[in-house]
């Protein structure tokens, strides 16, 4: 019985390995879908303007992602009935991290231009598209 259980454990481990095809791109796809959802639900009227990084510095991707994640938390849904879906998407996006290849000097988040929530999300979309393409 013990031997059978060990065999089953090894079997399931191997199936997990097989499903792990290009996880990086799958993650970017998921984040892009969530940003698209947020763009459709976000409140624009009387909403706070957010620092939106652009002209991303090569090698400092995670630092830029961190700036976006700070801004993401300030977004609000336009309709209250969208709150659960909105909160879930925010939670998924907040957990996303990228890798800094070699980051020498990045401008601080506050040095970027402030934009409306939808343009802020478009800026975030651009960053993830860059990561996906490369």
């Amino acid at each position: 019985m013990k031997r059978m259980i060990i065999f089953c454990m090894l079997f399931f481990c191997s199936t997990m390995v097989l499903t792990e095809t290009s996880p990086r791109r799958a993650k970017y796809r998921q984040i892009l879908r969530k940003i698209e959802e947020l763009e459709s639900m976000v409140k624009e009227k009387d909403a706070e303007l957010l620092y939106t990084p652009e002209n991303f510095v090569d090698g400092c991707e995670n630092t830029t992602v961190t700036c976006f994640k700070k801004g993401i938390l300030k977004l609000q849904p336009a309709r209250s009935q969208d709150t659960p879906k909105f909160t879930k998407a925010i939670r998924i996006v907040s957990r996303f991290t990228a890798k800094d290849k070699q980051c020498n000097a990045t401008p601080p988040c506050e040095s970027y231009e402030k934009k409306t929530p939808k343009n802020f999300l478009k800026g975030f979309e651009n960053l993830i598209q860059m990561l996906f393409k490369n």
Partner: protein
Amino acid sequence: VYVPTSGLIPCLLLAGVECELYNEEYMTCMWGSREMPTVNYSLFYWYKNASNKGVECKRYLQDQGVRVGCYFEQNELIQFQSFHVLINASVGGKTLEIPSKRMLLQDLVKPAAPVNLTIRNMSNNQLQLTWASPYPNDQCLEHAVKYKSNKDTSWTLSVNGDVFSLPSVDYEKSYTFYVRSKINKFCGSTLFWSEWSLPVFWGSNSTSKGPPAGPPPLPWWCAVWGSVSPLLFPGTVEEQLYWFGIRTVLVPIASCLLLLVLVILLVRMERVWVILMPRIPNPSKNFDELFITHNGNFQEWAGVPKDVVESFKPNYSENICYVTELPPKDSHEPLWDSSNHAPPPMPGPPAAPNEHSPYWNSYGRV
């Protein structure tokens, strides 16, 4: 030469500068046409964080001697950086500067049209259309197929992934297919579809390769896959990615949970074993009377009549017990009892094998 007022030029350029990045190989930015006033135009461009502000276009595109566009080489193009263009219109010693708004080159990509369109006959009268794309990154493309038969009046448009399937075809008709591509939302927010590809034809009255002589015989697993694959890989790229996302998230999670359960099983085997394989219930309490009162004698407990019990007994043989009458006490002859006698041969089957037993015969042959 008609010299327009200085106010007219900005009006004519309100249509804006239109840039297109062809297959990420080169870019053209057009700002005018033959109807433009005949003035001297020059284009300057820069990227927001570039050190040199305003590099002039190295190769202008001209229409009847008037500059109407600029051609950019691949090494002049940087994606994901703000791209700005400034048009200078010089007329009569005066120069007007007309800036354009900020552009992102990844949103201006127009891929090349698909090539090598191929049709294959699948099982169940199904056609499968495949193609190749000159664009280097397949993951960034989505495709649209338009087709019609010789009996249809309008085209049918379908947006999908890398392969297009037509579920049922009429062998009496001939079909024409076109494909075009676009950068999908994972690589840019583009609006440009590529040009339509060269067409491919299928069916009777067609010049395509291979006679339409009916579907070739296929192995059974191909038919099974043909019916199962639309369920596993439904139409659009988005649905494929959705299912891919589900699979990559749910399958590892389910496997992990199952793994955890198995680990717990291993550690706490005894307790789970008892739950999964419970103790076999013992109904002996219902049979106390049988085991205790009648000492396991089923016939007695069941109330079977004695003669029936006797009739079920197998042939029974026992040594004949010789009973002798004891002599009277005054004679001292030795006692004759069964212990001094050799037992007579038993009436039943002999205990030792003899010449007539089948076992001995077989032993003898060996």
